[in-house]
């Protein structure tokens, strides 16, 4: 239905512009600091992976990477799990205060992290969760749970109500209906939601670094090591930056078809 070269051309130009800064980072990560400072170069003339090896050999880096992945995974699972029944309730029923509650949930997306960093620190310190992955998991729930409810609500709305009624007539109990029939119907929505939860938890740094100090230090916090008294270790910083993109790229690869089909509201 659409033809012509123009859209393709525009798209390719956009992709190139999009990739340039990322390419530049990869380019930097494969060069030594002396090489970087010696001048502009479009590709590494003497590519080296020494900085990557340095990161893999250092238990602090590896541990921090594991910590980051752990809290992101836990947060994604919790957010989606608690948001599913809530999204169903918001879409299917009227109940006292439903609209206000929904909007209140959304307001939590608007809380600037810079403001809440201090009170968060005090709260999690008081309950003894400071410097554990759970502190970060719970803190990220503040914005990921409302977001998950919001996205899932749209997908629940895409499933015709007749399906609920038919299942009830066929003698399905509610939990059985919900798990066996309803969840598979909104699998796309769950994929998309999980992707967004993963993304926002993975990229959030301010709370993650405020709520941890040694044991549960996230990867991004360890990156500050590259700023040393002797100046910036651009090469190390770039290599670490390249590594932070890897998990995200994997996740998006797995949900790419859901994203494409996703938000197909009302066409299930």
């Amino acid at each position, binding site marked *: 239905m*659409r033809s012509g070269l123009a*859209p393709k051309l*525009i*798209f390719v130009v*956009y*992709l190139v512009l*999009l*990739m*340039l*800064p*990322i390419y530049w*980072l990869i380019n930097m990560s494969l060069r030594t600091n002396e090489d970087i400072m010696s001048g*502009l170069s479009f590709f590494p003339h003497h590519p080296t992976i020494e900085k990557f090896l340095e990161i893999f050999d250092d238990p602090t880096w590896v541990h921090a990477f594991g910590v980051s992945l752990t809290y992101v995974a836990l947060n994604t699972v919790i957010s989606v799990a608690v948001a599913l*029944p*809530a999204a169903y*309730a918001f879409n299917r*029923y*009227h*109940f*006292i205060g439903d609209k206000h*509650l929904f909007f209140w*949930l959304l*307001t939590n997306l*608007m*809380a*600037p992290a*810079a*403001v809440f*960093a*201090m*009170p968060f620190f005090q709260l999690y310190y008081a309950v003894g969760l400071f410097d554990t992955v759970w502190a970060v998991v*719970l*803190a990220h*729930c*503040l914005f990921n749970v*409302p977001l998950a409810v919001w996205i899932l609500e749209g997908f629940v709305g895409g499933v015709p*109500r007749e399906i609920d009624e038919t299942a009830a007539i066929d003698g399905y109990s509610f939990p059985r209906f919900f798990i066996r029939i309803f969840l598979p119907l909104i699998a796309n929505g769950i994929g998309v939601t999980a992707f967004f939860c993963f*993304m926002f938890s*993975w*990229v959030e740094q*301010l709370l993650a670094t405020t709520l941890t100090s040694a044991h549960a230090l996230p990867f*991004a916090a360890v*990156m500050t090591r590259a700023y040393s008294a002797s100046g910036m270790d*651009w090469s190390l*910083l*770039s290599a*670490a*930056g390249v590594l*932070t993109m890897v*998990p*995200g*790229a994997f996740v*998006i*690869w797995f949900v*790419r078809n859901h*994203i494409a089909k996703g*938000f197909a*509201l*009302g*066409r299930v």
Partner: protein
Amino acid sequence: MIDKPINNRAWFFVLPVLAFVLFSSLIPVMTVVNYSVQDTLGENNFFWNGDSWFRDLLNPHTTIGARFNDALFRTLAFSFVALAIEVPLGIAIALCVPRRGWSVGISLVVIALPMLIPWNVVGTIWQIFTREDIGLFGAALTGLGLHYNVTQDAVSAWVTIVVIDVWHWTPLVILLSYAGLRAIPDAYYQAARIDGASRWAVFANIELPKLQKVLVIAVLLRFMQTFMIYTEPFVVTGGGPGSATTFLSIDLDKIALGQVDLGNAAAMSIVYYLITLTVCWVFFTIMTQLDRRRDA
């Protein structure tokens, strides 16, 4: 539209969500409210201070009031500029994304990549990329004979922050719009072809109205995020030169953590929060009203 049944037991479905969100929001919010009405002479002795922090803040003739006004204006201007570029650009690119074939998967992964980079790494990427000596962007602009200097020139700093935001977040608009476009049944396009509709007519009468729902999500999310923008200016410009890129959250951070002026910072964050809330509420209400009118 069929009316939803009233069922107050649905609250049980919402309870887990409530528990998780309340745990992380109630006490921190109350702490901020507390600080906003108290003053201290040190040593953790706080006393009631009424609304005086707020009165100072909202009076443009006080130092803090003037500072707040400036930062608020800068932040609103930034949100406006960013949305004005990202939303049309996002829709336009979404129309160009391939719909079938091997290139779909790759395209989506590449588009989404910037969003999956942690914020401080985004800062790092652009810190390098905009340097005149080792960064392509900085070197290219300088090479073209433009006066480009992030740390000394206010225009450069602003352009840089906007470019970063567009680079970082247009993909969100693209992905949401793309998903919305894919949801349009082919029958609509066939009908349009039979009627001999122009490309523009198809866009204005079929695609754009169908995109409304996802665009609400995209615009609301983008407004909230640009209004709270923090990391990019913090890492790349540090709020400078002068205070050219000192947006609200940067200013808040300076007051709360830099000067440990908790009363002012708390009052400021509450006013800030209320502004976001109002804008979103208005937007939300308008959009749901439109939705209802269309369904009716």
